[in-house]
């Protein structure tokens, strides 16, 4: 059999950290979902598995629910959907929407169930609440006879991948214990495989935040015979790129490199870029810094420049010498010293940032007055 495994569409998710780009981020998730369905159609798979957290919350906009139902409804074959911890099938949940009934091929499992597949059997293990210390796969009757291809569909955390006490813990040996050929999981947003490729997270089809290792994918899975190792093809479905450029600036060249790196990013209109700089900055670096900020603001879908951990270069006194003698120069020297002392000796990043910005403001005003 061949199927597409997807999960964690997180439709309706909030993206406050990206401000005005949040709406675009949310809209892209629909597009990514559509790409998953298109992938499934293109690859002519037997069915589509959606392993939970299709929606970010049960209280999302009902229009979004209909849109998802219609997107999934485009697939001509069966679509097996389980609720996750974000969208459990409680009263008022997204699964009560009438749109699901309009597409007969969509099957939403509200309770654990077993259905017969053409070449196997599907064990659906939906979640019924947001938190639980229980293994959601416990309802799967063990059968290690390998008489048929057994597919599990669930949502939770494979034990060992997080140090904290987790919800819905799933043993890495679940496939061996219960005789599953493949366990399609959702919950973690990056594509990952465990237990020799049988316990698999599809990951979110669209990245949800900075720092996700490998999100924006859907999986095309093929299992030829019972007991055979699954063949997993990771297919890119994400439309946006979330990137972080973190650099320690020690010399002016470093900042130029950052500027160039920013400049070279392809398709900035579909990129969310966070630039985080630390280190030392000379007065002459200010224009470069401003240029980086302007590019981020003007060219990218969303851009952020965090220069709060940059402090003035202690040996850079040239620009101080250009200041009028007297209180102004003295004040500038003090601000520079304060920035350094706060940053390095006292660990007071806030004071260092304010002192540095004060110097930058002085520099800008001085340039303005001098002009």
């Amino acid at each position, binding site marked *: 059999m061949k199927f597409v495994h997807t999960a964690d569409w997180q439709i309706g998710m909030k993206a406050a950290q990206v401000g005005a780009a949040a709406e675009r981020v949310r809209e892209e998730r629909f597009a990514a979902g559509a790409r998953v369905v298109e992938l499934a159609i293109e690859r002519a798979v037997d069915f589509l598995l959606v392993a939970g957290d299709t929606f970010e*919350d049960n209280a999302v906009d009902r229009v979004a629910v209909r849109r998802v139902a219609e997107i999934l409804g485009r697939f001509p074959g069966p679509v097996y959907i389980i609720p996750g911890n974000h969208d459990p099938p409680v*009263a008022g949940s997204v699964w009560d929407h009438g749109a699901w009934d309009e597409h007969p091929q969509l099957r939403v499992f509200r309770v654990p169930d077993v259905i017969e597949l053409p070449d196997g059997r599907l064990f659906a293990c939906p979640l019924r609440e947001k938190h639980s210390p229980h293994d959601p796969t416990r309802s799967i009757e063990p059968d290690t006879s390998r008489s048929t291809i057994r597919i599990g569909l669930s949502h939770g955390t494979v034990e060992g991948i997080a140090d904290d006490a987790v919800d819905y813990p799933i043993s890495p040996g679940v496939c061996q214990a219960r005789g599953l050929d493949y366990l399609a999981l959702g919950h973690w947003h990056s594509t990952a495989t465990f237990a020799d490729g049988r316990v698999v997270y599809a990951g979110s089809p669209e990245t949800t935040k900075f720092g996700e290792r490998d999100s924006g994918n859907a999986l095309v899975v093929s299992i030829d015979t019972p007991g055979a190792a699954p063949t997993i093809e990771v297919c890119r479905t994400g439309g946006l790129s979330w990137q972080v450029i973190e650099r320690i600036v020690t010399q002016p060249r470093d900042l130029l490199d950052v500027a160039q790196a920013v400049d070279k990013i392809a398709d900035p209109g579909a990129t969310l870029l966070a630039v985080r700089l630390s280190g030392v900055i000379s007065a002459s670096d200010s224009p470069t810094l401003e240029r980086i900020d302007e590019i981020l603001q003007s060219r990218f879908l969303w851009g952020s420049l965090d220069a709060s951990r940059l402090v003035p270069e202690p040996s850079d006194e040239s620009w101080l010498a250009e200041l009028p003698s007297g209180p102004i120069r003295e*004040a500038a020297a003090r601000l520079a010293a304060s920035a350094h002392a706060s940053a390095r000796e006292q660990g007071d990043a806030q004071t260092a940032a304010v002192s540095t910005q004060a110097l930058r403001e002085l520099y800008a*005003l*001085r340039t303005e007055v001098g002009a």
Partner: protein
Amino acid sequence: MILRTITVSGWRCYAAAVTLGPFADGINVIHAPNGVGKSTLFEALQRGLLDSHRVQGESVRLLQPWGRELAPSVAVEFEHEGDEYRVEKRFLNGASSELLRRENGAFNRLSEGREADNRVREMLLGDAAGRGLTKPAQWGIAQVLWVPQGDLAFDELSGGLTKTISEMLGAQISGLEGGALEQRVEQEYLKYFTAAGKLRGGRDAPAHVALAGQLSDLERQRLDLTGRLEAFDEASRQVEDCRVRLAQYDARCEELVRQIAECRKEAARHAELVKVRGQRQLEASEAQREFESCASSIDRLAKLRGEARDGERERQRLESEVAALERDDEHHTRQQSRAHAELLTQRARRDDVERRFNEAEAARRFHELTRGQQQLSRLSEQSGQLQKQIVEAERRLSELLAPDDGQLRAIQAAQRAYADAHTRLDAVLLRIELIPAVDGWLEVLAGEETGGRDVRAGVPITINGSPELAIDWQGVGQIRASGPHHSAAELRSTRDAAAARLEQLCRPFACDDIAELERRHTEGSALRGHIGELNARREVLLDGRDDRKFASELAAVSASREKLLREHSGWGNSPPDADELLAAAKQTKDAFQREIDRLELRQEEVVRTATAAKERLAAAKATLSATKRHGDDVRAQIDVLVADGRDDAARERRRSELSLAWLGAKEAVEAVGRKLDAFAQQPDDDLARLESQLEATRTQQCDLAARQHQAQGRLDAIQRESPYSALGHVEEQIAVLSARIESERQRGEAIKLLRDTIHDVRQEVFARVARPIEVAATRMLERIAGGRLGRVCLDNGLAPRGVVPRISETDVSVETLSGGEQEQIYFATRLSLAERVAERERQLVVLDDVLTATDAGRLMRIQAILEEAADRLQVLILTCHPERYAGLGGCVTWDLEAAIEASRATVG
């Protein structure tokens, strides 16, 4: 710069040219009386060095001498940085300016016109001349060094001078560019903060403050939406809870329905058994009834037969008894009649008893009346005797003519009055006692009694009178006597009135002898007492009755007695013995009463006995009648019982059969009872309980369904709001706004830090500039005024702000000090500043009539300081009190008045 000479002409009071100089390098004192032109000279020095020669206006035209159309001119020779210069300026008509420098022993022109003006200012002040007259604030260093009259105090020095002084002290002050940059920083600062350092608000608020309101609104929206989301979750939980519980209720209802069905079957079976048991019981009851009826009939028949026999015997006995009772009743009736007759006879004797009592009472009454009559007669006789004695005493009293107490007192009082009047009169009368030796005749001409009288030899004659006595004694002469003039007439009148009163009072008693009247009074009182006693005794006798009543009573008693005598005629001669009669009457009465009592008792007993006999008879008859009826009933019942035609044996057989049938029926009932006992509980009760539970469960189910419906409604309503999506939008707006606000806030903080740092540095720089000045001024002040005032404090303009006395930690404002101390503080400050300025080059200090409020002692100390300062400064003192500065060492004095006179002489 130090001054060498000054020449002034056509300048106010200086019509002709006046030249002063060359001045010494040290102290120069220019003195002149008021109005001579000291200050004008100083003014000319200022204008000549600092003003443009082309100034116009009324203030310049006032420089012209009164009534003259002269062009004010001034020429100043001075030294600056080792060179000698001379500037010549002419104002108004033919305005000109020339600057010359001594070269090779002669002054050569260096510049002229505006160039000359500017060059002089640049040498002295470093800036060009202005368009108008230069004000002290534009004097540069001279602002400190030159003190016009009355201007020793100063508020602040110009910024340029402060900068100059600071630079002289090595302090770095921002130049033009620095100033512009500082202004720019300040501008940016003022976009965020007020001059007082507070964050701006209102329309001028910085962006992050202005946006705070929007952020607050968004936060409120977030709070609301978060609440809606929580409400959504809560409603969802409620709906879920209701679903679970409804499912539980459904299961419960199904179970109850099943139990009810089971219970109904049991109840039906139970009911059937109960019905069967009822039937069996009826049958058993019927069998028992038949048996008992048969047995009862047999027993009753036997009983009735026994009763019939007993009844017959009883009837016979009762009939005998009734006959005996009838005879007894007749006997008692006869006895009752006899007793009643005897009682009536005895009662008829009551009148006799009463008659005896009446007689005894009459006798007693007769005796009583007799005694009363005798007593009354005796009292009457006694009363008569007393009455006679009273009459006699009253007669004697009336013949006595005795005054009573009041009359006697009145007479005595009149007697006293008369005696008193007489004594008074006698006291005032003149009295002459004549004892004639021979017989004769005299006439009293004036005296108490006038008229003639015979005199006898040896018989004294007393003659009274008042106020004089006049006696014409025949043959002897006249004798006159006079005395104090008293009103004997009044006394005499009083005496006469008293005598008349006495006579009037005594007249009813025909006696004017008081003693006699007193005797009569005493006797009269005794008679009256006796009369009173007699009256009292008579009243006692009469016992409150008057004579008429007394007589009437006596008559009544007598009449009553006569009546009794008529009724009992023998009593007159032989009075009855009332006691004896009474005793006889009592005795008779007692005997009568005893007999009556006996007869009445006897009658009661007889009546009782008769009544009892009648009752017995009636009872016996009733019993007999009842017995007869009972006997008839019994026979009738027996007839009924034997009407079936059976004999006794047949009846016995019937009873046995019925007994067996009854036992069988009872056994059948018990069998059904055992089946019913097999039921543990009453099925009907269980059924009722289960149905009640079902009803309650369905009711709860309905309620829960309603609550679920409501919760679902709330859930649907919130669902339509899409709170999660709405919350996401709001949080995104908050993030954007917060970032912007934070950016602005941080920029504001950075600008503030920048501005405050610059400000702090300026303060420190200034402190470095001001501190040496303060120290020098403090030391100088201490030398002048002692240590009481303490430390001099300067403000940002290097002007004295106040002092900090040693005993105080706080500033004392200059304005609160005395005028002299203010002068000294400002003088010390100026001189300290001047010495700083003069560190590179000797400078000119001009003091135009200052220190006018300083006392001589402190002025002396100031002069000592000036002497020291003369090492570094050229001091020019303008004064109208040269004597004050006579003690100044090394001082050159200039008599301005003499100089002016000399110049006039030169011109003239």
